[in-house]
């Protein structure tokens, strides 16, 4: 069996995950990256998306993160996210509503009233949440 590393996903409100895992995949701003035990020290910002990991029993799991930072060390991965949810905790109705709102905002003509960057970020978050919710088999 492969060596394990410790995955921690921390938000300001709570510690979402603290588990021993075999592999972690996370969405870095410059591209998705995977971490196994013994990874070289690495620090990156991450964008909204899914963190995929296999726990000590090889069970696959995914968790949504809204963006933040990740630090990988040989024996440990720490993800600091503003919010993070396991798949079963995702409020999909809220995400759909957010998607709707963001789309309307981006489509509207009143460009001065709309903060495009923020609307776009909200759109991304909503899409990722829904995608994760609809993933089958995990």
């Amino acid at each position, binding site marked *: 069996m492969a060596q394990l590393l410790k995955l921690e996903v*921390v*938000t*300001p*409100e*709570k*510690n979402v995950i603290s588990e021993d895992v075999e592999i972690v995949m996370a969405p*870095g*701003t*410059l591209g998705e990256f995977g971490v196994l035990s013994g990874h*070289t*020290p*690495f*620090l*990156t*910002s991450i964008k909204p998306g899914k963190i995929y990991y296999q726990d000590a029993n090889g069970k696959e799991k995914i968790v949504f993160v809204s963006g*933040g*930072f990740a*630090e990988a060390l040989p024996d440990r991965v*720490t993800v*600091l996210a*503003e*919010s993070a949810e396991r798949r079963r905790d995702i409020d999909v109705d809220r995400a759909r509503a957010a998607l709707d709102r963001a789309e309307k905002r981006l489509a509207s003509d009143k460009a001065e009233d709309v903060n495009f960057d923020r609307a776009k970020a909200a759109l991304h978050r909503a899409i990722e949440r829904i995608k994760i919710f609809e993933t089958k088999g995990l």
Partner: protein
Amino acid sequence: MATLKEVQSKIVSVKKTKQITKAMNMVATSRLRGAQTTMEAFRPYAEKFAEVLGNIADKAGEDASPLLSPRDEVNRVHIVLLTSDRGLCGGFNVHLIEKAESLMNEKLSQELDVSFTNFGKKGRDWCRKNQFQIASEYLGVVGGKFGFNIASSAGQELIDNFLNGNYDEVYVVFANFQGMANQPPVVKQLLPIPVIATSDTQENEDVSYMAEHIIEPSPDELLNEMLPKNIFIQIYNALLETSTSEHAARMKAMENATKACDDMIENLTLAYNKARQASITMELMDIVGGAEALKG
């Protein structure tokens, strides 16, 4: 001397007051426990963030971000004042407001413009009464349930205004929770961000360890992303500390009030007993007097 009935009704009313203060004390105690749990849940995030930020700041260039550079000429100062929404918590809000007032007076004496963002009704009311300029207000946050998003939206507003040049300096006034009996008001500069302390607590070994990190995108870019978040964290932290302090202050105030009620009840009961004894003695004397008269 008060009549029996008067004293008795007073005792009843003080007892009722005591019931209320006791209930408020218990509510504050349980809320305090909740607030402390939230604070503890936040600590790992804040500590890790500070550690990473300190290391990044070390590597990034001096003027990596406009949020770091002080303005050559400061004209407009903004104060974020955190108070509670409700009273009955002793001198809690008074202390916070005094702190904000002394900061404001210091800035006004330098002929600067001062405006406010208020978290909490007490501070808002104070600003309104004195007709200070209020940029925005958030009620029902301090002392209640709130998430990180309130801190980030308030923080974003401050950052936008800072970058637009609407504010040249931003301070936050909040209560620092140091324990059940001690919640001193403190002033912290939010913007421009004061020099970030690079973590000295770490062993040298760790620092060199950090130096070998691969950093994506670049340290400067990463710092630029982290600095606004650092502001949000400071605000969230201030909110948590003030909320916890509010509950602790109210708990203490209500405990004192309950004690004062006990003292009053004791004194009143004494007065009641005295009055009752006096009236009995009086009646006895009447009877004895009457009996004597009949004999004669």
